[in-house]
């Protein structure tokens, strides 16, 4: 295999082959073993792709936190309420968002879901404490001033 052949192979190889994994590409691994220049190219590609992976991870995973409560509480809601609870989800989300965005900080303290002070953008994620008798998921958004909170009633166990 020539260096030009190896380069062509490096452009399309599995990520593991860039690290010289013989299981991914035996011939390429043998060439990299004996060729410092191609090994440097392979290492550079591997490092850049790993860094890209981290950047995409950071973009996609900003402050994903599950806020599911740990205590199970038996629901005493009537059946019609439990069956229809997910229909309330968009309304609940809108209500929480409205609370976060509209109410002044002082009025938010002590409300049903306790919401901390608005963070300085890009610094601290919004702190949300959920009521113990509900499950929920807290999702950050692209806007640091907006956090989406999903609330749902626990089903009877």
């Amino acid at each position: 295999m020539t260096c030009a052949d190896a380069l062509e192979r490096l452009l399309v190889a599995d990520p593991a082959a860039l690290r010289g994994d013989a299981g991914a590409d035996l011939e390429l691994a043998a060439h990299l073993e004996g060729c410092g220049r191609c090994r440097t190219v392979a290492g550079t590609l591997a490092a850049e792709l790993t860094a890209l992976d981290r950047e995409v991870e950071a973009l996609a995973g900003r402050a994903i936190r599950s806020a599911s409560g740990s205590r199970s509480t038996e629901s005493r809601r009537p059946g019609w309420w439990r069956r229809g609870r997910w229909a309330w989800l968009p309304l609940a989300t809108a209500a929480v968002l409205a609370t976060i965005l509209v109410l002044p900080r002082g009025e938010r303290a002590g409300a049903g879901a306790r919401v901390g002070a608005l963070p300085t953008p890009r610094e601290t994620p919004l702190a949300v404490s959920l009521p113990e008798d509900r499950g929920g998921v807290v999702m950050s958004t692209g806007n640091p001033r907006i956090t989406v909170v999903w609330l749902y009633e626990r089903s009877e166990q």
Partner: protein
Amino acid sequence: MSATAEDEGLAARAAAGDERAFGELTRRLLPRLRRWALARTGDPDEMDEVVQETLIRMHRALAGFSGEARLTTWVYRILANVASERRRAAGRRPSLSLDGGGEPVDPAATTEDPVTSLHARRMAAVVRDYFETLPPGQREVLELVDHQGMRPVEVAEALEMNPVTVRAHLFRARKALRRRILERYPELMEGYGR
């Protein structure tokens, strides 16, 4: 128990009405769904919308999950449909908005160390290439195979695409992205006759 089996166990409990299981399942799936939605839409704001709608539809449809396909394949199919519908409805091309907290690299904010600064600029360019140069279909396949570890045949099933097309997208995406990376290291390319 494997992660897949755990996910499917949670899905079965959620389908039976266990909301706590659904919460846990959501927590486990969210990072992967967000990455894929970002790769598909190229827009962090749209990513949030697509993921949220996907989870709502997933919850509604869980009772009908037969287990014939893997759970992630099934959920990804929902996400693909949501993203396609939203894109058709919006009638616009996806675009990356790097404003706000998710900006990956801000060269101006880095130290004045020229090596660090050069690295930051190169990284920002790679991220831009990933989102702006790669066609969405290629980027999506690259994300699922190279970053999320799915096999091409699973991707083909999730995207309802011919496996040969999946492989073609994958090779084109790898080649385009890696070429762009190497263009920024001309010193490495000396002697390769290009």
